[in-house]
């Protein structure tokens, strides 16, 4: 098909022909086209089906406010639903599909909804799908879900990259029409750092769509010259294809730049879109205005569009939607459309102006004081019927109708910080109110100044005001000469005549009747109206429809529109792809992966890894003969107790505490005493929250009088450090103490088992005596290893065996694990992972995150006596509350299966064997393990009055798996309760 509806002129590059398809049909367009303009050029008016009634719809606007022409753009993984054809730039090879229709756009089976429209009025879903309740999930929801929603997803992963960017400027100018360009020139020439953002791919705004002059040259050339000058200014950044989405606190703005949406595929290393965070000291809203519809019978026929859009298509894109066009208007704006299209050779069959005093602006028939009462043509407009001022009806044959009900300033961003709008009678619309976001002003049509001269003037003035407020020196700019016609509008929100549907919100299919029904049923507040009828709740946020709906409601309630008020505008100004909000934080980029110093070595050993927070830790090290993880874990755990094992424990948090008051500080932070800990010794520390609940535990090693190293659990490294800084700065400001996190600075390995000392003796430099007498249990010290490398050695044990933790600077961690493995070869040293670590600690009854779950007190853990009452400590006072020390309360206990074949379930609930397994249980299992040493399943758990129930057999209810088991209550110290091994 040829471009049958192309006119002469326009700002398209006729030398560059672009091929594209819509619903499989091949078409041609030109560089500079949008998908909408190119479709119109090919005589395509039908572009979509409406959401609810599946009404055939055509494009009504030429900008981002478009409610109808939503398509699925591209195919495969890049397919994107709900793309507005009006802002989709044409590129060679573009493919688009219409949405919300089956089997085809011209014949849509669900168009049957339209026949039942009397039943599908406002609130239909609320009224109909109420009963029976059993139908909600199984019956109603699947049906509604299938019928609802526009477009479809490819269900493939998005192959494109999305970036985030940050910018700072003195003045952010939002919109590059006449006001924005004049403001940018003023601020730019005066040396301010300016960002000028516009959602279009060409700067100039309406200047590109109008036939008028500025300073004696065509307005669009003035715009192009101005942009050229701005480009040369180093202090001005021009951002086209960039929509400012939201205004946030303290001059922070979100902006979406479409870097590659105008290309078939982004260039290599190019993000598809960038989400900018712009820090603007001042901002100026020059976002222009959106034309509004006049509702009349069947005003949604494909071919009915905004008069301003019809003019833009003609002047900018050299396109007309029909050979014969009509205009329906209540302002002079509609007459400009008729004048311009007539000048381009289009037959203007009539301008229907509701104002009796209207006069023509050119050579075309005018029907003053008339109204359009109906539109014909289901799949495309064939004609309009009007009621003339003399009372007669007349039908005009036409394929396109331009409607102008007046213009609404684009004030959305002024309301993002709860700003309220003010009604302006002269333009019959809302303008920005007194409280704008910090540092924001408005100019041009966005401020209600509708002539080009006013726009230029207000842009200059507001830019100067913004610069003045920053204390920048300014020289004013002479205001260019431009059109300065007065704007006059006689509000006409809908045509009363006719019983058919008169459409307000095209995207959500809300009619004048729906608004009246909402009023009749008591949904009169604008917020209720919105939610009941869904007016303005579609992805276009009612840019073309809200005011019309409010006007109908105002009429019904007898209030003014100002009294009726508006709903609240919220970000984003236009829809944003979720991928853009995610940026690079998708997939593996969502969170960093932290690798332990021995990671690459562990990979060589064939380790299986597990995520522990951000860390990847070796879970176990399977050998070739092992087919089940339990075989590996049992072997590792047995090896530690029999000979020696090694485990990377770098992930434990480490905080370096230094200063004359370091001991006093730890004495305050930990519930147990630290003041008297000698140099060269470690101590277990129990840290409470101020409410008496256990926060964390770890060890503190005193390396010098004024120097401690404390450890935290892996999960709590960040929160504990934050808490310690809070105590230091806010509660103990007079103490001489400094903290720093050294978690990443030191690689640390546990070497555990009866042969641990023998292994370490081969690594630690000989001047350091590791004998039990010289370096006993809980000793610590700074040593050297492998011939002079500085290291720290702690004789602490999580496994209950003779054990050490040895730390070296992180970069030596991988070398050290290899040295340890070599030194341990004679003892068959076994690397063990987090699973075996867990088995060993459950066997010893040590609490970890499962037990320190934010609900347990020291008493619950059997460590109540550790909380000193002889000193001040965080959490000590409230830990003595009765409720936390109830003798009948929970107590950490051990549990063992009665035979070797039972596996205890973690999370299983505990009941006395005689009690029914229902209601509130007496406790639960927190951690379970198979103990290869005991040959059976064991567990830790909390049990009411646990200490008095040793030996009792309790029931473990696991209703999720239909299990009911029994276990014996025992001491949580399954292995070596006297602790002889770790002291050996």
């Amino acid at each position, binding site marked *: 098909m040829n471009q049958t509806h192309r006119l002469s002129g326009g700002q398209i590059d006729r030398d560059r022909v672009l091929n594209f398809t819509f619903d499989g049909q091949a078409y041609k367009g030109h560089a500079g086209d949008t998908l909408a303009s190119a479709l119109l050029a090919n005589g395509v008016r039908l572009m979509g089906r409406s959401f609810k009634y599946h009404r055939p719809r055509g494009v009504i606007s030429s900008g981002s406010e478009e409610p109808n022409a939503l398509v699925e753009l591209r195919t495969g993984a890049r397919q994107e639903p709900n793309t507005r054809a009006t802002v989709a730039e044409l590129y060679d090879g573009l493919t688009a599909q219409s949405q919300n229709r089956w089997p085809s756009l011209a014949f849509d089976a669900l168009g049957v909804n339209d026949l039942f429209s009397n039943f599908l009025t406002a609130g239909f879903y609320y009224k109909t799908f109420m009963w029976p309740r059993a139908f909600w999930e199984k019956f109603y929801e699947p049906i509604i879900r299938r019928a609802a929603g526009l477009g479809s997803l490819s269900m493939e992963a998005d192959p494109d990259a999305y970036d985030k960017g940050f910018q700072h400027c003195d003045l952010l100018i939002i919109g590059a029409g006449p006001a924005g360009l004049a403001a940018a020139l003023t601020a730019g020439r005066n040396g301010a750092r300016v960002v000028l953002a516009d959602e279009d791919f060409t700067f100039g705004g309406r200047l590109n769509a109008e036939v008028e002059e500025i300073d004696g040259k065509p307005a669009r050339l003035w715009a192009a010259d101005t942009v050229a000058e701005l480009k040369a200014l180093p202090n001005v950044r021009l951002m086209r294809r960039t929509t400012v989405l939201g205004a946030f606190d*303290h001059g922070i703005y979100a902006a979406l730049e479409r870097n590659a949406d105008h290309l078939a595929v982004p260039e290599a290393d190019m993000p598809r879109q960038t989400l900018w965070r712009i820090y603007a000291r001042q901002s100026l809203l020059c976002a222009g205005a959106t034309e509004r519809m006049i509702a009349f019978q069947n005003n949604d026929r494909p071919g009915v569009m905004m008069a301003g859009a019809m003019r833009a298509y003609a002047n900018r894109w050299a396109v007309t939607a029909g050979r014969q066009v009509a205009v329906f208007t209540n302002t002079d704006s509609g007459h400009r459309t008729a004048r311009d299209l007539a000048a381009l050779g289009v037959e203007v069959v009539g301008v229907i102006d509701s104002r009796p005093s209207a006069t023509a602006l050119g050579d075309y028939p005018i029907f003053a004081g008339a109204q359009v009462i109906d539109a014909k043509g289901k799949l495309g407009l064939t004609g309009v019927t009007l009621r003339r001022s003399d009372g007669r009806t007349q039908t005009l044959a036409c394929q396109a109708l331009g409607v102008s009900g007046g213009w609404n300033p684009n004030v959305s961003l002024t309301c993002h910080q709860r700003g309220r709008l003010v009604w302006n009678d002269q333009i019959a619309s809302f303008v920005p109110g007194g409280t704008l976001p910090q540092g924001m002003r408005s100019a041009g049509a966005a401020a209600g100044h509708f002539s080009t001269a006013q726009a230029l003037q207000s842009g200059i003035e507001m830019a100067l005001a913004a610069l003045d407020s920053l204390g920048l020196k300014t020289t004013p700019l002479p205001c260019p000469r431009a059109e300065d016609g007065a704007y006059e509008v006689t509000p006409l929100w809908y045509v009363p005549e006719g019983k058919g549907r008169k459409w307000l919100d095209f995207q959500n299919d809300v009619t004048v009747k729906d608004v009246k029904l909402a009023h009749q049923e008591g949904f009169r507040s604008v917020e209720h109206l919105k939610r009941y009828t869904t007016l303005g709740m579609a992805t276009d946020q009612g840019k073309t429809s809200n005011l019309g709906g409010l006007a109908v409601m105002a009429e019904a309630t007898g209030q003014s529109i100002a009294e009726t008020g508006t709903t609240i505008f919220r970000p984003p100004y236009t829809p944003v792809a979720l991928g853009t909000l995610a940026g690079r934080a998708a997939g593996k980029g969502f969170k960093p992966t932290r690798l332990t110093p021995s990671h690459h070595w562990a990979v060589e050993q064939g380790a299986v890894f597990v995520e522990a927070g951000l860390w990847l830790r070796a879970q176990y090290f399977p050998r070739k003969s092992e087919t089940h993880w339990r075989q590996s874990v049992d072997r590792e755990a047995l090896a530690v107790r029999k000979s020696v094992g090694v485990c990377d424990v770098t992930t434990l948090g480490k905080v370096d505490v230094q200063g004359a008051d370091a001991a006093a500080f730890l004495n305050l932070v930990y519930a147990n005493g630290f003041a008297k800990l000698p140099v060269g010794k470690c101590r277990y520390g129990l840290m409470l929250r*101020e409410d008496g609940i256990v926060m964390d535990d770890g060890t503190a090693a005193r390396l010098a009088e004024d120097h401690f190293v404390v450890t935290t659990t892996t999960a709590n490294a960040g929160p504990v450090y934050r808490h310690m800084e809070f105590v230091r700065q*806010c509660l103990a400001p007079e103490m001489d103490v400094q903290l720093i996190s050294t978690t990443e600075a030191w690689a640390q390995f546990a070497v555990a088992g009866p042969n641990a000392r023998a292994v370490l003796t081969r690594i630690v430099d000989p001047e350091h005596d590791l004998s039990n007498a010289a370096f006993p249990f809980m000793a610590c010290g700074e040593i050297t290893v492998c011939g002079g490398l500085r290291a720290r050695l702690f004789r602490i044990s999580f496994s209950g065996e003779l054990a050490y933790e040895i730390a070296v600077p992180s970069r030596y961690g991988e070398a050290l694990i290899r040295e340890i493995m070599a030194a341990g070869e004679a003892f068959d040293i076994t690397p063990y992972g987090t699973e075996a670590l867990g088995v060993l600690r459950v066997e010893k009854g040590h609490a970890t995150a499962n037990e320190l779950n934010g609900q347990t007190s020291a008493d619950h853990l059997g460590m109540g006596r550790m909380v000193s009452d002889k000193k001040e400590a965080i959490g*000590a*006072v409230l830990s003595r509350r009765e409720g936390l020390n109830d003798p009948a309360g929970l107590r950490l206990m051990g549990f063992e299966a009665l035979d070797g074949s039972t596996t205890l379930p973690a999370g299983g609930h505990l009941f006395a064997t005689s009690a029914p397994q229902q209601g509130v249980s007496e406790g639960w299992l927190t951690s379970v393990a198979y103990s290869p040493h005991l040959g059976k399943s064991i567990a830790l758990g909390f049990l009411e009055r646990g200490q008095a129930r040793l030996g009792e057999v309790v029931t473990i209810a696991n209703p999720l798996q239909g299990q009911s088991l029994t276990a014996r209550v025992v001491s949580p110290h399954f292995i070596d309760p006297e602790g002889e091994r770790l002291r050996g």
Partner: protein
Amino acid sequence: MIIPHPLLGPRDAQEFTYLGDAGLINRPYWLSEDAARAFHDYLYLRDNPAGQHRELWFHEQGDRSWLVVTRDTTSHEILSVELARDVALARRSVA
């Protein structure tokens, strides 16, 4: 939001972690006669004003300062920012 850090100048609020009412600086004396009651009130009874609020923010992705930020909770206007340590020290010198 942008928080004007007393040492580092204006910083994005994303760099901070929020804790809550700055009254947490005023920790009761542990040996006072009504210590249990005082700690209960200190921990659980806090104002939640619509308007000016003194609150604690931690510059976790910055210099690790705890700050006392006086903020209007209805407008997010920030009226003053102090180092929490300075506030705590001033309290000591008064007491």
